[in-house]
């Protein structure tokens, strides 16, 4: 039985719950949802409301931070010593491996030089810390403590010490939200390290499983194979570990092989992560050559007949070259920004459409 209260019935403090009101608010929320589903203005709204949203995130993360700090404070020296020893051993191992890699890297550079390849192995990263906030246990999102002010951009890959974790889908001024590779709407192009087989690893919705669907039956893949990013799609650079293949079976129709993989990254444990900076894309046309010669201002305005007579038109040509250079630069800039804009329009990686 509804409560009849006809006096103080203002919009936000009405006592009753009439069916008409219910229908009104339901219709309103459905409208809001439909519009947001198509226009994605929640992100824009969150950008505007960041003065409230960011402090709320930090405040909610406070207890977890305090708990971690207390754990560090009360940990015994014994434990610290053993942890220290362990880390030192790991460092030694990593150092040894790095030394060997250095030689390989030098060799690789030499060979690349011979081949005249532009592909760059250099890697610039940015350190980020997880803000311990739970957005929804059934959605695979993490909040990081770097944002637009620290140079984060939508679409940047997020990795940890063991492998790829995901990519940034939303950047606020001082925080950012990343989608993990296990999110059901995420897909990452991978290559099987042993055979070079290219495929796509889809998120499964469980933090410890990736799905590899639609692999041809003739393909050579079995449990224990390592998956690396293939670099196709341009979002994730090539060569980062993604996961290890677990179970391999035929799919329900019997036409393809379906496999599961376990992510390499510690998706549920990492406290610190690395953001990969945007890198020069290794494909596309080379940059236009710089015009060599005296600057155009020095030459001064020369009469056209003169140029025609000498057959060497330095000012006009250099100006034209400059114009060409700027247009080429603009198109180059467009090529660089296009993945970003597409990333903003839809959170899914562009790789999904280009298997």
């Amino acid at each position, binding site marked *: 039985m*509804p409560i009849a209260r006809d006096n103080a019935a203002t919009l936000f403090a009405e006592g009753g*719950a009439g069916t008409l009101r219910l229908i009104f608010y339901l219709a309103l929320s459905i409208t809001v949802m439909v519009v*947001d589903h198509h226009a994605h203005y929640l992100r824009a709204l969150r950008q505007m409301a960041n003065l409230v949203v960011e402090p*709320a995130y930090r405040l909610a993360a406070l207890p977890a931070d305090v708990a971690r700090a207390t754990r560090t404070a009360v940990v015994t020296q014994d434990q610290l010593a053993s942890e220290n020893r362990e880390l030192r051993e790991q460092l030694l191992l990593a150092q040894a491996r790095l030394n060997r890699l250095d030689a390989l890297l030098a060799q690789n550079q030499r060979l690349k030089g011979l081949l005249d390849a532009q592909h760059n192995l250099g890697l610039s990263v940015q350190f980020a810390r997880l803000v311990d*906030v739970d*957005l929804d*246990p059934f959605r695979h999102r993490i909040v990081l403590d770097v944002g637009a002010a620290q140079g984060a951009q939508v679409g940047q890959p997020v990795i940890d010490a063991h492998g790829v974790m995901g990519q940034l889908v939303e950047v606020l001024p001082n925080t950012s939200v990343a989608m993990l590779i296990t999110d059901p709407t995420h897909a990452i192009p991978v290559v099987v390290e042993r055979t070079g087989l290219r495929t796509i690893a889809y998120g499964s919705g469980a933090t410890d499983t990736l799905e590899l669907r639609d692999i041809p039956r003739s393909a050579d893949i079995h449990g224990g194979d390592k998956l690396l990013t293939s670099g196709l799609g341009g979002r994730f650079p090539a060569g980062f570990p993604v996961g290890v293949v677990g179970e391999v079976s035929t799919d329900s129709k019997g036409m393809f092989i379906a496999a599961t993989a376990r992510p390499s990254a510690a998706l549920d444990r990492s406290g610190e992560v690395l953001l990969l900076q945007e890198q020069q894309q290794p494909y596309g046309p080379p940059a236009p050559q710089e015009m060599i010669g005296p600057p155009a201002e020095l030459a001064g305005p020369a009469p056209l007949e003169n140029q025609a007579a000498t057959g060497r038109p330095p000012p006009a040509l250099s100006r034209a070259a400059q114009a060409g250079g700027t247009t080429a630069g603009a198109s180059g800039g467009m090529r660089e920004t296009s993945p970003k804009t597409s990333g903003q329009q839809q959170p899914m990686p562009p790789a999904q459409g280009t298997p």
Partner: protein
Amino acid sequence: MNRMRLQNWVFSGSLLVAFLLQLMPLPPAAEPFKPYWLGLVVVYWAIETPERMGLGLAFLLGLAGDLLIGELFGEQAMRLVVLAFIVLRFRSRLRFFPLGQQALALLALLLNDRVVTLMVRGFSGEAMPPASFWIAPLVGMLAWPVFYVLLDNLRLRQRAAD
């Protein structure tokens, strides 16, 4: 006058704490067990002071929740409006239920809330959540008596102190 102000403090304080609890992380293994705190607070205030917790406020709280936590703007608004509507409709009965029975009614409410969520996510094309999605309403039911007594105590103590 003073009492009113204190009441307001408890009211807005409980909402604030619910938002923070909703954001606060649990250990990964315990994450599916987190109850829908925002829903519990809305249900409590709808039962106790319906003149304050109307559908409009539930809607606004849902929008705020979406701003903080959500993926689709309006999802929580819809959930909270449905929750508040059912509670306000059956308020006169719910109020006089013994605590255990109230908790059972809340379980039904929260399960319904999960169904609404599932519907919204299904329509927006999200993947179906795993089976552990259905654990949270049970935890919400178990948490309800403690939650109810705690908030009641806070509210009534101030009335007594006045």
